[in-house]
C-alpha cells in the first residue's frame, strides 16, 4: 500500500466528513441562510435600478450577481481556510495530524476538499432563488455555465493557497481579521466587483489587476453578461486569455509556495504551543 496515496485518500474522506458535519450544523446552516438571504435582499431592493457606462445600461441585479459570486469565492476560500488553519493550529488538530505518519498531507488534502465543497451550498442558496426571482441573469446559456465552472475551478486553485498561507503565518486566530480579512476586503473593494473599476484611480486599477480577485470577477461577468456589458470593462474586452494566465500564475505560485510555508509552520507545532495558545485564548475570553 502506497503511504502517500493512502494519506491523500484519508484526507479526502476527512474533507467529505467535515463537509457533511458542516451541512448538519445549525451554525453553518444559519451562516448559509444569512448569506443567501442578505444577497437576495440586496438584489431585490435594487431590482429596478440600472448602472450606466459609455452609454450602455445594464440592470444592477445582472451586474451584481456575478460580482457577488466572485466576492464569495474570494472570501470563502481565502478567509475560510485562513481561519480554519489558525484555529486548528491552536486547538491541536494540526498537531494531531503531525503525530501520525503522512498526517500533514492528509490534513491539507482534507482542507482543500472541505473548503472547495463548502462553496457548493453557498452558490446554491444564492443562485437558485436568484434565478427564480429575477429574469435575464444568464445571457450566454450553456457556454456561460461552462465559463462559470472553469472560472470557479481556476479561481479556487488561485485563491485557496493564499488562505492556507495566511492561516500558516498569522500569530493566532484573533489576528486573522487584521492579517487576512482586512486585505481581502480592500482587494475586493478595489477589484471592480461591486462597481465598475473605471471609477477608481489608475494606480488603484493597476494594483487590483495584480491580484486574482479582479480576474475572478472579470471571468464571472464574462460568463453571465452579454457583450454590451464590455463597456464596463477596462479594455473593452473580456480578456479571457489574460484571466486564464493570471489565475494560473497564482495557482502555480501557490503550489510552489504553500507546501513550504505549511512545512515550516508544521515544524514549529508542539504541545506546549497548543497549551500556550489555549492559555492566551482563555485570557482573551476573560
Amino acid at each position: 500500500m502506497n503511504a502517500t496515496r493512502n494519506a491523500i485518500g484519508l484526507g479526502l474522506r476527512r474533507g467529505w466528513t467535515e463537509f457533511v458535519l458542516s451541512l448538519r450544523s445549525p451554525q453553518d446552516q444559519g451562516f448559509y441562510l444569512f448569506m443567501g438571504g442578505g444577497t437576495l435582499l440586496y438584489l431585490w431592493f435594487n431590482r429596478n435600478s440600472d448602472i450606466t457606462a459609455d452609454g450602455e445600461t445594464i440592470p444592477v441585479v445582472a451586474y451584481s450577481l456575478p460580482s457577488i459570486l466572485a466576492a464569495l469565492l474570494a472570501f470563502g476560500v481565502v478567509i475560510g481556510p485562513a481561519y480554519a488553519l489558525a484555529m486548528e493550529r491552536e486547538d491541536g488538530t494540526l498537531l494531531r495530524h503531525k503525530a501520525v505518519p503522512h498526517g500533514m498531507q492528509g490534513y491539507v488534502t482534507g482542507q482543500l476538499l472541505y473548503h472547495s465543497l463548502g462553496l457548493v451550498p453557498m452558490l446554491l442558496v444564492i443562485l437558485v432563488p436568484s434565478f427564480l426571482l429575477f429574469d435575464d441573469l444568464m445571457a450566454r446559456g450553456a457556454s456561460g455555465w461552462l465559463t462559470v465552472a472553469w472560472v470557479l475551478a481556476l479561481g479556487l486553485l488561485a485563491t485557496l493557497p493564499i488562505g492556507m498561507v495566511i492561516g500558516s503565518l498569522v500569530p493566532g486566530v484573533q489576528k486573522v481579521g487584521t492579517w487576512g480579512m482586512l486585505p481581502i476586503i480592500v482587494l475586493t473593494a478595489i477589484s471592480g466587483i461591486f462597481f465598475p473599476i473605471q471609477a477608481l484611480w489608475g494606480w488603484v486599477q493597476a494594483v487590483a489587476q495584480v491580484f486574482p480577485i479582479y480576474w475572478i470577477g472579470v471571468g464571472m461577468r464574462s460568463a453571465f453578461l452579454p457583450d454590451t456589458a464590455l463597456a464596463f470593462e477596462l479594455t473593452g474586452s473580456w480578456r479571457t486569455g489574460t484571466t486564464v494566465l493570471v489565475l494560473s500564475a497564482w495557482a502555480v505560485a501557490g503550489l510552489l509556495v504553500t507546501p513550504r510555508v505549511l512545512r515550516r509552520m508544521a515544524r514549529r507545532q508542539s504541545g506546549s504551543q497548543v497549551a500556550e495558545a489555549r492559555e492566551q485564548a482563555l485570557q482573551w475570553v476573560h
Partner: protein
Amino acid sequence: MIRTRGLRMSYGAQEVLSGVDLEVHPGEVVCLLGPNGAGKTTTIEILEGFRLPSAGEVRVLGEDPAAAGEAWRARVGVVLQSWRDHARWTPRQLLTQLGGYFQPWSTPERPRPYAVDELIETVGLTEHADKKIVRLSGGQRRRLDVAVGIIGRPELLFLDEPTAGFDPQARRDFHELVHRLSDLEGTSILLTTHDLAEAEKLADRILILTNGRIVASGSAEELTRQVAGTAEVR
C-alpha cells in the same frame, strides 16, 4: 529505544534543560517525575521530534527524531496535553480516520492499526463511541486522547501528564491499560507526571527531573532507599 546525552534546551537566556542523559530500554515503563516547570514537557517534545534541542545527542528508535521520516513516526505513539480538536466528530470517526494512516505500516508481527471497536472498549468508551466529542467529559476526552495515541500499536509511547483531569476510577482504568500495553504488547513507555503515587504504580524506573537536570534515577524502592540513606547520613 531512547538514548540522550548532554541534552540541552534554552529559550533565549533561560536554560530549561541543562544536560539531560537518559535511557529507556525495550519494554520498559519509565516515568519522568518532576514539579511544574522542571523541563518534562520540553524533554518529551524533543524526543517526539516536535522540538529541536539547543545541544546534545538524541536517538529514539535508532534515529534522530527531528530528522526521522514517516516510517519512524508510524512506530511512535504520542499523547500530549491540551487537545481540544475535532469537537463535531465522534470518537469512532476520529479513531477510524487517524488509524488509517498506520495501515501501510502493518506487519504480521505488529498489525496496525488496532481494531477501532476493540480499542474503544479497551479505553472504556464503548457507550460514548458515537457521541460527539464535544459532549464527552474531561476524563472521557482524555481516554480518547490515549486511544488516539495508541491506535497505531506503537513500539514506543509518549504520555505527557496522561491522567490530568481523571477521576479515581478513570485513573485506575488507565493504570491497568498502561500495564496491559507494556506486558502484552511489549510497548516501551515514557510518561511524565508530577504525581509520585502514579509514578510508583506505573513505572519500572523513575527519573526525577528538577531544574532541567535528572537528579535521581531508579525503581521506586531504590529511590526510597536512596532517600532513606540520605536521611540516615544526615
